[in-house]
């Protein structure tokens, strides 16, 4: 009965707005953060940090960015990767061309550039809706990729168009080892997740959901549609931009424009579909799923005697599994893994009773 709620009433509205209303949830979160910040870097192997945790965190963040726009504000986008690219290339160029710019500021400014790009391509949303908006986001996707490939200034005229990470250094501390890159990523992810969580619980978040659920009614009760939509694009773009910079510099170390192609946008979209549209925790569940499923499948096939299933077929199988899962989730649980997780928690709250 660790989920005892007895006696936990919110005495003030302020208490009701807290991150988690229940003490147990709050303590679990603190424990998780402590574990993530203090224990993981100490015990995580290179492989875990480099190949699983960092991409998981970055993809969660990208999912969060898109979820604000699509899950909360209801604006469908297939251009997430474009804004990630803007974030990455802006951060790279800022680090290169502004001497002495602190790394954290560089990444944050990269996010600001991405936000600006996102608002620009979000402008048509003031006039067009639904699928038609896909055109604008796809235009962003293809145009940005073209721009960074075409104009070699963006990659400092490197012959290959590949950009490499600026020195990962904060106040004299070198963060280029796996644990350092992990902590840097984690820091951004935690900060932005808290920010996003506050935003969706605030007036702006409610306005987004109002626009999503019924925009005519939203307009009638005085919600400024244009401002609300564009703020969604801006915040989403900012977070995606930071995610792009982290993807390029704390995860891969190098990146070329092609690394942010349409399939990356799809990947981010799948994270939020599987994780749960309009849910903050869902991004993490969805990203974990997307990162771990392929690895799990390939390890599983490694257990089979060789020759039973070849690597190629496995990849096809994985594609099919992904597709089926997406369809399955949409049919059975449109709110994704986040909803399943919530149900599990509800169970725990009333345990050992059944209801």
């Amino acid at each position, binding site marked *: 009965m660790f989920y005892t709620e007895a006696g936990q009433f919110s005495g003030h509205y302020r208490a009701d707005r807290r991150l988690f209303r229940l003490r147990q949830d709050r303590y679990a979160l603190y424990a998780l953060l402590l574990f993530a910040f203090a224990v993981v870097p100490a015990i995580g192997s290179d*492989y875990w940090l*480099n190949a*699983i945790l960092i991409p998981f965190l970055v993809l969660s963040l990208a999912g969060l960015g898109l979820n604000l726009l699509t899950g909360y504000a209801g604006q469908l986008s297939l251009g997430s990767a474009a804004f990630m690219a803007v974030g990455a290339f802006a951060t790279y160029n800022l680090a290169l061309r502004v001497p002495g710019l602190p790394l954290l500021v560089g990444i944050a400014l990269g996010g600001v550039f991405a936000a600006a790009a996102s608002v620009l391509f979000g402008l048509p949303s003031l006039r067009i809706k639904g699928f038609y908006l896909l055109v604008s986001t796809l235009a962003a996707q293809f145009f940005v990729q073209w721009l960074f490939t075409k104009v070699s200034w963006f990659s400092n005229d490197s*012959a290959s*168009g590949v950009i490499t990470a600026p020195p990962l250094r904060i106040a004299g501390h070198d963060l280029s080892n796996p644990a350092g890159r992990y902590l840097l990523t984690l820091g951004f992810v935690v900060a932005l997740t808290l920010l996003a969580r506050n935003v969706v619980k605030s007036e702006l978040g409610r306005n987004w959901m109002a626009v999503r659920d019924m925009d005519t009614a939203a307009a009638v009760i005085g919600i400024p549609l244009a401002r609300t939509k564009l703020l969604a694009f801006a915040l989403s773009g900012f977070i995606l931009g930071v995610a792009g910079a982290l993807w390029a510099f704390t*995860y891969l170390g190098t990146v*070329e424009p092609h*690394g942010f192609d349409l399939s990356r946008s799809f990947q981010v979209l799948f994270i939020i579909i599987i994780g749960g549209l309009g849910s903050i925790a869902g991004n993490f569940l969805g990203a974990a799923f997307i990162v771990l499923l392929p690895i799990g499948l390939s*390890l599983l096939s490694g257990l089979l005697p060789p020759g039973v299933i070849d690597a190629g077929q496995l990849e096809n199988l994985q594609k099919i599994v992904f597709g089926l899962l997406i369809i399955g989730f949409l049919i059975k649980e449109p709110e994704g893994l986040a909803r399943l997780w919530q149900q599990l928690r509800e169970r725990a709250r009333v345990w050992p009773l059944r209801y």
Partner: protein
Amino acid sequence: MKHATFRRVAALLVAGLLAGGAHAANEQYFPLQSYRVGPYAAGGTGFFGGFIDYLQYVNAKGGVNGVKLTWSECETEYVVEKGVECYERLKKGLNGAPAAATNPLSVGIAYATLDRSTADKLPLITINHGRTDSTDGSVFPYVFPLQLNPYSEVSAIVNYIGQKSGGLDKLKGKKIVTLYHGSPYGKETNPILELLAKKYGFELTLIEVPHPGNEQQSQWLNIRRIKPDWVILRGWGVMNPVALKTAKKTGFPVDHIIGNIWSNSEDDAAPAGDAAKGYISITTHPSGTQFPVLQDIKKTVIDAGKGNLADPKRFGNVYYNLGVVNGILNVEAVRLAQAKYGKKPLTGEQVRWGFEHLNLDDKRLKELGAYGLVQPLKLSCADHEGGGAVRFQQWDGSKWNVISDWVQADRKLLRPIIEESSKKYAKEKGITPRDCSKES
């Protein structure tokens, strides 16, 4: 019962994720970041098929001085982050067998694992592709763009055009169009082409085809208007057959199109059908099965039913043979390193020494049964490329026929450009280059 099975699988998964495991015997391990699905699967299945078959063949002959070769595959789908995940997963070796070198056959993955390879002291082999300035081994000790880097490639093509026109001086006033894939890979050689155009006085037009390249009408109409003497095709995947088809459609003679190293396989020409007849491309190695080493592979591996190719008809094609060539170079490096460090499984650092001292002359190539398949190759601390020569082949509608002898790139001309770039990289990254005069 169900739960027990589930738990066992889960336990195995966790064990797998945490890697490690039992200590293994006398084995040398090759981590294979292969790709067998996705848009570039045709190249991956051929290359890794040839590579694996060669390793099997070496094992059938008793391994390298008794050290058995072992490998495992990790599918990358040519996607960079999957390649990185595979790298991180496999770099530690398998069951105690240490990794010798990684061979991703992907520019993107090579770039993303470049720093990691150096940090982990594991050679990164980018045969026929990769980062041009990694030719300079003093800055990139662990990276080997074996045989041919992108700059050498265009230089050799221009030299060939010169030969065809009756001397490099005859290039003056000729019109050459380069049709390139709209990606960093496609653009990489443009500055060199411009340099060569200035040097030899030919008129160069660079035309971009946006990825993936399945529509090229406007580009070829432009080419028709320019009426060039030659078209250099720097294509990739579907762009190649479409280029050939569109060339035919717009009436450009296909036998004046020269494909580069990623436009030179059966899979690039065959889908274009008749339109590809007469198409010329470069190759670092001929296709075909007549070489003794391939005959041996056929006997010991393929005929024993252990061949890696799903489609046996692809035995001896361009990608397959590239895999075999790559296998030969990797195994030779291990063999060489064993001569120095002892006949046992070696670390990546030791294998690196072997690569850096590769010296395949005609005699050794004949012993290997690979004379004519692999070009003579001599590497050093300063030169991680080695060869820099290509042959030209022509498509006859069903197979490639070699139509030239080895044509050498003008490596002297390229060297200063490469060094300038590697110096810049060293400065950006804070690397102190090795002094090659002191390396043994």
